[in-house]
Structure formats: C-alpha cells, structure tokens
C-alpha cells in the first residue's frame, strides 16, 4: 500500500480510536484536510479560532480522560493554539496537537505563515516533534499518544511540513495503538512508613488534587478516607474527588476556600497530599502552610515531590494504585476529638453565600442550576469571580463533573471547553458559568456551538467588569479601579441570538427560577444572562503571599 503522509496520519489517528477532532484548515494543513475529508471514521469540528479548537479538544479530553486531537495550520494557526496547549500542560490534560508547517525547504526562510512552531511549543508541551520524513509518522504518532497518556498526562505537539504530508510512503501495516506506559512498582518500605505516620497521627487531613481525578482514584480515595476517618480538603482541580456532601469533605482550600477549611489545615499534624502540587493559590505562603504537619506526598510525577514542600514520606506512583496498596496497611482509628474539632470549626467558620436564596444573584444562580440539572451534568467555568463562586458553592459529587482552567487561569476557556464536553458526551447537559470579560474572549465559538447544535447552556454573570481584577484593585491597590470596568457593554442577548442561540434575560424575568429551569430543559445552545454587582467581592480571600489563615472577609 502506498499512502501520502497526510493519509497515513489520518489512518494513524483512526487506528488510535480518534472519532472527533477540532481544528481550522489553512495553506500548510490542506493535504491533511484533504485526507481527513476521505475519512468516514473521524468527524472534524470546525472551530472559529484555533484557540477554540484547542479548548474544544481539552473539553473532550477532560470529560473522557482520553487523549484528544486539535489541528491548525502554520504561523497564526500555531500561535493561536499556544494558549490552549499551555493550559493543557499546566492542568495535565492529554492532547495531541497537530499543525501544518511550511515545506521543509522553506523552513528558516521567513516563508509565508512560517513560525518556529517547534521552538514556541517546546516549553509548553510534554514533548514536541518536527517531522522530517513521512516514514517517521507511525513512530512519532504512536509515541505522541503514548507520552500524552503516560504518567502525568499532558499535551504533545506534532508539526508536519507540507511536503512531508504530500510525500508518498509505502505502508504495509499500522502499528499497535499506543497505550500508557506502565508505572514502576511501589516501594513497600515507603508504603509502610506512610501507614505508620497515618496510624500515629492525631489530626490528619487529606489534601486532594487533580491527580485524584486523572488517576481515576476518586472512589478509592473516598473509601480510604471513610474507612480511616480522615477529613479531606480539595484543590480547585480536585473538586469532585469526594462528594461535596460527604461528611468528611471539607470543600476547597486556598485563596478563596472556606475559613474552616483553611483553619483545619492549619491545625493538622499530618497532611496527606494526593495528586496535588502545592500550588500557591492552594497553599498561600508555602512556609506557613500546615506549619505543624508532617507530609505524605503521593504523586505520579517524581519532580513534584519536594518541589515546594519537603515530604516526610514521598511516594511516586499512580494515585489509585498507591491508595489501594496503602489502605489495608492502615488500621482504622477513631479520632473523635479531632473530628469534633473539625465539626466545631465548620460550625463557627462556615462558607457564607450572600443572597443564596435569590436566583438572580451569583450564589443563587449556582444553587438554582445545581437544583435543576443534577449530578449527570458537566459544569464548566471561565475564569474570574464566577469561577471561584462556582468552585466554592456548587455541590460537585463525581469526578470529571467539573471542568475549569486551574493552572493557567485562561479567560475564554469556558465556552469552547463546554462545546468539547458536549461533543464527547452528548447525553449530558453541559452548563458553562461565565463572566462578560471571559465570554468575550472566545465568543466566536458560539457559531461552532450553533453549527453543531450542542446542548450547551452558558450562564452569564454580567458585571460589566473584570471582576476579580477590580476586586484586587479595590483591596490591594487603594481602591483605584483602572482598566477593569467596561464603560460600554455589548448586548449579549442580541449577540447570542445573532449566532443562532436561544437567549434568556433574567433581568427581565418576573420568575427567574422558573426561567432558569425552562432554559436548562430546552435542547441546544442557550444563553442565560443575568446582571450582577461588580462591587460584590468573592470572599473570603487570602491576599497573595499571605498564609492561608490570614483571610479577608467571609
């Protein structure tokens, strides 16, 4: 069999089980697109901006846990993809990003739409390739999928010059589809040391990160916590690891965590960090985080151990495997006094949700949506005040129910990620909470959503401001609000309708709760618009650089 490089690439993607890809064509990607047109197994979703394509692929990857693919052309196609790929890197999302490149002979000549994609993608990917020979494609593509899925997941970039796409290559058979590498066996001495620390601890706390979700360990960790009786705080990325209404669940820790959560951590004598990386937004001032605690750190990435906080016992391994191996070694022990203390702190320092009963307020909107859609729905956010409020207040009860841009904090993540989630799991409702600042950053994807007819609802909390920026200026920059308030705001309802969306304005609804329910039940893309007050801060808040217990408000 004799194929072009592009045809071979499409066969390799099919072979890898890829059913949907998101992208935008352009000059140097045309051979690939011509080959994609011949495929009856891969559906191409045409985004309206390459960053949208990257986040659509992320949405698919975050809900399924499988490697997903986005495609762009050279030059601006590649640079537009960078943000979505950097975001995937920081949140450990498995992607394969494929771009066209100018022909091999033109590389380095400043050719039309030439950019150094290899150099640009190097620091934001797990690994990257510039394919120089079509015969290398089977090895490169297989390795790319293997690397993206192995260990700590992440994005891999494959840049393919146009002449490599058109070159003919003899192909006898396709390689076996890539699978994730096996993780080295666990060290039983370390497991035993960890088990003894837990057994002897009087005030242990679990600190659950996104690694619990990506390792498929949520049920195992919840069972472990329940059997041994250890309360668990979750990071932004770890929400859903333990059901929010579980008696041992402490909600989110960190900059906008509840006061009781951060104060319980302050009193812990043992911190069990599971798939978490001691990010500054989660732990505040590193040296003053859990000052009295020994640390057990479990992570699949060896470079995370001792990076910020030296572990008393560090265990490298897949979270699920480690927890399942650790569980039987730890005897259950009643820690009545500690759990009473936890309950007392929870009682005296609860998370306040101002105006939670008003469905046209930020917390009320979140509550109302949660009451309407149930646990099956996928909840997505953009970045800002609305994101922190959803993280604080939404009752997440399962892993992969919650998609948010954690590490990079990318405004514009929400809408395209929601489209990706809806494409990958068409049976689920997908609700994206957004703000006016964030929504404007990828609003062109409303066209993609309308074209695909995805069941996506955008709940827009419109404060005509970059709310979290304004909040920081008011709190830490002498109330000088500068370049954070929009002096003119677009009519989002007209815009949504112009894209072919249904739109509901809660500002004009006499019965907002009923209007929200009706809008959520409707199939297809819907914008639910609600004006909110920019003067309302997200509280409590740890000032940047302060210790977790030095909180403002709430």
């Amino acid at each position, binding site marked *: 069999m004799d194929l072009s490089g592009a045809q071979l690439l499409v066969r390799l993607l099919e072979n890898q089980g890829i059913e949907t890809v998101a992208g935008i064509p352009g000059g140097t990607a045309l051979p690939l697109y011509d080959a994609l047109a011949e495929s009856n197994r891969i559906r191409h979703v045409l985004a309206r901006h390459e960053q949208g394509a990257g986040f659509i692929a992320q949405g698919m990857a975050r809900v399924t846990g499988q490697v997903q693919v986005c495609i762009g052309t050279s030059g601006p196609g590649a640079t537009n993809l960078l943000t979505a790929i950097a975001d995937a890197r920081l949140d450990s999302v498995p992607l394969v990003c494929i771009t066209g490149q100018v022909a091999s002979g033109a590389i380095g000549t400043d050719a039309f739409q030439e950019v150094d994609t*290899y150099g640009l993608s*190097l*620091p934001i990917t797990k*690994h*990257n390739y510039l394919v120089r020979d079509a015969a290398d494609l089977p090895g490169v593509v297989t390795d790319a999928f293997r690397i993206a899925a192995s260990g700590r997941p992440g994005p891999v970039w494959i840049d393919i010059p146009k002449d490599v796409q058109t070159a003919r290559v003899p192909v006898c058979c396709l390689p076996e589809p890539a699978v994730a590498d096996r993780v080295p066996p666990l060290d039983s001495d370390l497991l035993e040391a960890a088990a003894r620390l837990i057994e002897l601890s009087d005030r242990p706390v679990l600190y659950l990160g996104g690694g619990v979700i990506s390792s498929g360990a949520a049920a195992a960790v919840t069972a472990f916590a329940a059997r041994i009786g250890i309360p668990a705080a979750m990071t932004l990325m770890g929400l859903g690891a333990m059901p929010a209404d579980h008696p041992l669940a402490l909600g989110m820790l960190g900059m906008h965590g509840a006061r009781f959560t951060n104060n319980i951590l302050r009193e812990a004598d043992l911190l069990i960090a599971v798939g978490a990386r001691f990010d500054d937004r989660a732990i505040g001032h590193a040296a003053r985080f859990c000052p009295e605690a020994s640390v057990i750190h479990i992570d699949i990435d*060896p*470079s995370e*151990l*001792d990076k910020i906080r030296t572990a008393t016992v560090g265990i490298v391994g897949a979270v699920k495997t480690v927890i399942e191996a650790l569980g039987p070694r730890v005897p259950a022990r009643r820690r009545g006094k500690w759990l009473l203390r936890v309950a007392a702190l929870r009682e005296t320092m609860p998370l306040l949700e101002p105006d939670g009963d008003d469905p046209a307020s930020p917390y009320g909107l979140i509550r109302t949506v949660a009451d309407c859609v149930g646990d099956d729905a996928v909840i997505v956010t953009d970045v800002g005040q609305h994101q922190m409020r959803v993280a604080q207040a939404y009752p997440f009860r399962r892993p992969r129910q919650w998609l948010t841009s954690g590490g990079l904090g990318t405004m514009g993540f929400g809408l395209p990620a929601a489209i990706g989630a809806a494409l990958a799991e068409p049976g689920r409702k997908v609700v994206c909470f957004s703000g006016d600042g964030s929504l404007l950053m990828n609003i062109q994807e409303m066209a993609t959503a309308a074209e695909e007819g995805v069941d996506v609802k955008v709940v827009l909390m419109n404060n005509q401001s970059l709310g979290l920026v304004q909040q920081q200026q008011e709190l830490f920059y002498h109330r000088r609000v500068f370049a954070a308030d929009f002096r003119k705001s677009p009519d989002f309802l007209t815009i949504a309708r112009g894209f072919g969306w249904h739109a509901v304005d809660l500002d004009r609804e006499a019965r907002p709760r009923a209007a929200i329910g009706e809008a959520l039940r409707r199939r297809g893309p819907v914008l639910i618009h609600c004006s909110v007050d920019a003067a309302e801060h997200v509280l409590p808040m740890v000032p940047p650089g302060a210790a977790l217990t030095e909180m403002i408000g709430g």
Partner: protein
Amino acid sequence: MTSCETVTKDIDIPKATLELSVRNHPGVMSHVCGLFARRAFNVDAIACVPEGDGRQSRIWLMVSDDDRLPQMLRQVEKLEDVLAVVYHGGEHPLFTGLAEYVR
C-alpha cells in the same frame, strides 16, 4: 540560546557536572538548554559530542551545586529525549581541558 552560553562569576558556589545521554536530533539541545533557562538555573559550561553511530549524543553541563539542583535533576530526567543522567560532584576534567582554549 540563552543561559547556556552565559558564563557567570559565581565562583563561590560549588560546581557539579551533569552527564546526559540523549537521543541525537536537532531539537535536543533546545530541550535541555531551554529547561535550565526557563527555570532560571544557570549553566556555566556545556559540551556535546555524538556517540558511536550518531544516534545518541553525550552532553556535559557544568552547573551550580545548590539546593535547587535535585529538583533540576528530576526535571531533566523527565525529558523524553534524555535517556540517562549521571551526577558528578565538582568540576569535570573535560571542562578544565576546554578552559585552555579561552586562556
């Protein structure tokens, strides 16, 4: 390239030499040097030669042996094209020999 080529005068900090076995292709130096540069970890000296049939190369890096080095080592070991890393305490005779050329 960035910090790979800079030579600083922080002579008080003890030195170590990292010896890397890497896959030999045009991007590998970018991967190694870029990692050190973006983590603001200075490389004082660098040498690279192809091995045997040219499919692999050997890279020596002279770096500061400070308390951030263990974290850098873990990061280097994560690079896909780095096959092995050997740590040598102190300066390597390779670099003492090279110093002759810049006298």
